[in-house]
């Protein structure tokens, strides 16, 4: 699994539960190190061992932890760069949802060896969508749940999400857009990035 993903999990755990709990996780995982490097690639089993250890140390079901992590990725100032990159996807939430089909390609544009599973948005009726997450990254759909929820807040829209389980090997998230402009979203300034 790419170091960026491992590093993101680490950043989430340290910022939410503290550096000590993270050390406990890595001690239990017994990988022989405590810090992941963002720009290195780690064998999948190392990441899986770390996730299993995290579930045990934090005493919470992994899906819940991963969903929180998805929210963290969008809303924490530490990872503002990622939120900005997601906001480039569209000027409103629906456009953003449609841009998710391109997410793996966009990720690869930024980091050539970062492979994310394919995402497919199916629009059933206005405001009613299914997001189909192809397999390849365990727990990916739960992280996406957190991301989708937080991006809803970011755009100021009210959305209801439901993990519908697995269909033909792919995980399905149903998305209902209840109200646009429900609340004041966060500003997105194209040129805010310091050059």
């Amino acid at each position: 699994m790419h170091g960026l993903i491992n590093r993101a999990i680490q950043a989430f755990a340290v910022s939410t539960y503290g550096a000590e709990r993270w050390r406990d996780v890595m001690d239990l995982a017994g990988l022989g190190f405590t810090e992941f490097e963002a720009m290195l690639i780690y064998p999948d089993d190392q990441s899986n061992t770390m996730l299993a250890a995290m579930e045990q140390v934090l005493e919470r079901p992994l899906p819940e932890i991963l969903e929180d992590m998805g929210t963290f990725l969008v809303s924490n100032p530490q990872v503002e760069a990622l939120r900005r990159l997601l906001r480039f996807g569209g000027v409103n939430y629906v456009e953003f949802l449609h841009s998710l089909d391109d997410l793996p390609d966009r990720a690869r544009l930024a980091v050539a060896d970062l492979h994310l599973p394919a995402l497919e948005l199916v629009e059933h009726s206005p405001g009613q969508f299914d997001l189909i997450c192809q397999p390849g990254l365990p727990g990916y759909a739960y992280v996406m749940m957190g991301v989708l929820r937080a991006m809803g807040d970011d755009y100021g829209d009210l959305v209801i999400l439901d993990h519908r389980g697995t269909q033909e090997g792919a995980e399905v998230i149903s998305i209902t857009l209840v109200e646009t402009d429900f609340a004041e979203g966060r500003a997105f300034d194209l040129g805010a990035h310091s050059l």
Partner: protein
Amino acid sequence: MMHIHELTSIADQLCPMHAMVDASGRLVSVGPTLKKLRPDLNWEGKRFFRVFDMARPRWVRSMDDLLQTAGAKLHLQFRDSPQTSLKGVLVPLPQGKGALINLSFGISVLEAVRDYDLTSADFSPTDLTIEMLYLVEAKSAAMEASRQLNLRLQGAKIAAEEQAFTDTLTGLKNRRAMDHILERLIGSGTDFALMHVDLDFFKEVNDSLGHAAGDAVLQNVAKVMVECTRQTDTVARVGGDEFVMLFEGVKEPKVLEALATRLIARLEEPIPYGGRLCKVSASAGTTMSVWNTHPFEAAEILHQADLALYAAKRAGRSRHCFYEQGMQKDEQQAGALADVVQMQKR
């Protein structure tokens, strides 16, 4: 025939940074994004060349010149500040009615987006600007992560090198580091002196009081050596109780003689350890680079210091000798000395 206003509304959609000029070179209308760059400017009726300065091609001075450029790439910039540079292309309108000039930011888009507070809506949906901005940010973020990794690796490398060149017990430089520095001094032709120091009676301390006491003695010796030398000198532990010191730029034997005397006196001060006193002394032999003619080898100069040290031992220890030509380790004498040393150490 399409009316000019119909053309303008199409152009507003497809190229929001266009400018329409009449045959006399006056602006007829401009696209919404271009307008946003100078919101207070009254565009209509203004001369195109009053607003924009043509950078290339340079020969374009009049409306007639401008029409000649049809289809070619234009480089221009605003006359007033911020003088954002723009790229453009001109298409003449039919029947000599003027021209449509489409503009874009080119590479200045990063500053422009910030300076003019542009949003996605200011660019045509087919325009790749948003993708480019995305890519710039994504690459910057990825580059920053790489830079952080490089910094950490660099730090780890320095620490590893430090470790590889340090004697962990005493914190002095080790043999490797000394070899390195010696090679550098010889290679650069710098004058220096080399002093080889060997502890006397160290084995007794080790044997009677144990290794921990021996270690304490070595640490104290290292401390004394550092205190007796300058920051720029090199003090290295090259063997169990053997040390080499390099003095860069020292050419005066009497300076070294004084230093050796002071060093030996300090090393002879008893060191308390575990309620007991450890007593050692030291012998030293010194040679100088100026006594050799270039080119010479590190091994030669180390050997000279070794011979001088040997002479100091033979002369009764706890003393310092300079290397003299003709000094040698007589095999027989060496054997005899080794016996004496062995007996004393017992």
